[in-house]
């Protein structure tokens, strides 16, 4: 799992430019799968099992990651940008990025030149710029175009006790889970949807779900774990090491209660660690999927992840195993519901 995850995380695929991620996923599909690519770039993969279930099941994950897009080139060669997806400007100050295969840095006004007022203020995106080393606009234009996307430059590393740090764990993890499930020996037909543009408004999910027309959907995602000293009690939302996160509600969806209970029951029966979110926070493709056509019964199974939407997402390998385990155990039950 870790190897596929690493391979996927290191690919650059900001919302709207998911091509390389999609190509890699296609190259990793087992030979007995068929796939289509729709107008937005969603990759819809069907696996034929020995039987057809009365419930059409769709599993989904999104291929895109948050990033930035170049909006303007200053006379001194620095690049102004907008964020793509929700990035807090405070987490990108002092970071390394990649634009058009060129390295750049997002620096910061030196503390020595900041007034006392400015020193502790949150930074605005309009104050930031990317430095690729160009000394003037013309030089910058030799390497970069307006509209180029920018990704975090962040290695995939293991650290601490069973922890992993990388960019784009959201949601290359979900993609890795789908790829693993496609390789399993599963009795029934099912569909895996690798979606685009989740980070910019759950957009890929709409046409994909319309095309697949499922009865039940399971969204594999990552979700905010705030289990650091900066949060207390319920504000931690979920905890690394406490297993798969199955939530009852977030800002985009009230999940199907039958499926929610089934997930916890399945986890208990199989000794898989499972937790829920203690705050209503975040949202994912389930928000779009659940309202497709006449409605779709939906749950999400998520990886607790610290520092989401930054270059350094942190997750626990134990939780990754728990999710894969839960997925393989719950899937047969969904076919027979």
């Amino acid at each position, binding site marked *: 799992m870790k190897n596929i995850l690493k391979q996927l995380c290191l690919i650059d695929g900001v919302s709207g430019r998911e091509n390389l991620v999609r190509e890699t996923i296609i190259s990793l599909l087992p030979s007995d799968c068929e796939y289509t690519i729709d107008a937005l770039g969603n990759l819809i993969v069907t696996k034929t099992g020995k039987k057809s279930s009365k419930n059409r099941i769709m599993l989904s994950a999104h291929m895109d990651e948050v990033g930035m897009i170049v909006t303007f080139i200053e006379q001194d060669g*620095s690049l102004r940008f907008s964020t793509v997806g929700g990035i807090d400007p405070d987490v990108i100050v002092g970071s390394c990025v990649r634009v058009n295969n060129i*390295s750049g840095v997002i620096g910061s006004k030196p503390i*020595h030149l900041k007034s006392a007022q400015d020193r502790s*203020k*949150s930074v605005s995106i309009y104050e930031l710029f990317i430095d*690729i080393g160009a000394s003037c606009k013309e030089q910058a234009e030799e390497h970069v175009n307006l509209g180029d996307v920018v990704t975090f430059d962040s290695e995939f590393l293991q650290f601490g006790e069973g922890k992993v740090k990388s960019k784009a764990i959201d949601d290359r993890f979900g993609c890795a889970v789908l790829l693993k499930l496609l390789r399993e020996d599963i009795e029934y037909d099912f569909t895996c949807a690798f979606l685009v543009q989740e980070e910019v408004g759950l957009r890929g999910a709409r046409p994909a779900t319309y095309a697949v027309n499922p009865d039940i959907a399971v969204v594999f995602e990552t979700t905010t774990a*705030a289990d650091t000293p900066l949060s207390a009690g319920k504000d931690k*939302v979920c905890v690394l090491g406490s297993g798969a996160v199955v939530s009852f509600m977030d800002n985009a969806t009230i999940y199907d209660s039958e499926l929610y209970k089934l997930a916890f029951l399945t986890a208990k029966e199989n000794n898989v660690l499972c937790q829920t979110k203690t705050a209503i926070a975040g949202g994912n493709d389930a928000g779009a999927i659940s309202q497709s056509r006449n409605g779709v019964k939906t749950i999400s199974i998520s990886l607790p992840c610290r520092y989401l939407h*930054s270059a350094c997402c942190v997750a626990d390998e134990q939780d990754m195993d728990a999710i894969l385990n839960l997925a393989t155990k719950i899937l047969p039950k969904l076919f027979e519901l």
Partner: protein
Amino acid sequence: MDIKDTLLKLCKVNGVSGREDEVAKLIRTTLSSYSDDIFLNPLGSVVAKISEASDNYPEILLEAHIDQVGLVVTSITDDGFLTVANCGGIDVGLLISQEVIVCGKKDIRGIVCSIPPHLKRSKKKESLTMDDIYIDIGMSKVEAEKIINVGDVVTYDYKPVCLVENRISVKSLDNRAGVMAVLLALEKLKQCDYKCGLTVAFSSMEETSGKGAATSGYFANPDLAICVDVSFAQTVDCPKNKCGDMGKGPMIGISPTLDFNLSSKLQNIAKKEKIPYQLEIMGGATSTDADKICVSRNGVVTGLCSIPLKYMHSPVEVVDIDDIENTANLLANFVMLCKDDVI
């Protein structure tokens, strides 16, 4: 000497203010090509005698600080997170979400915690302080305590980036760029004849107290000194009157606390040898080692040369290699051309 290669080696080793051992070791090894007379003082500064002055020629000191800004561990929480304090001036805002290395019994990777958006919205946090900074090392307290002690230092992670043109971005260019310029000057001078005495000093603790320079200056006991540091290179968000331009050469310091004749002499040499240069005008003390060295013993005629640098004290500081080379050229030419008349 491959400048980029040597510079990156210098930036890779750690030397948070007060804990410069690794850098000092690397510098002493490098200096052994130029001197048999190398002294490591009790505060961690390295001083080496390169040559003795001929009659009536001055003893020159070229100096650069070797320490970098960082953090120091103040406690380990029950959940295994680390609290820290500043060791040198790091902007708290820059720490959020950074990758760091904790220098414990072995080097441990950490991530500085960031405040999740849902929490930011509910608490209107206007100002960030060190009390809001925790380092996630992904371990339990029990495991953490086996490797890390309170008092261990923390640095930015080493992530070198080659930019277009001859520019690089990496931690600790403040002041390994200055160190590089002095070492490069020594390399150039190796092939040359000159009559001035030459000592080099690589001082500890500039970012915190300046005691490394006070003590290295004392030991070197020169007639005149040039300190080599970094200073602000212009970016869109900085005031023009406080910055030099990247790529336009060393910034020669002019200030009431620096020797005006020496500043002029440096400019003249730059003009004569066609070395690009700029001026950095300051109204008082320079906030560099020059402030300590010039009041050492009976006083020292002191000048300052700074390499333009962007994003000072961040993990992504940027320099232009050409500026380092031109600074080294200026220093080497100064040593060769300097005569008694400058004092």
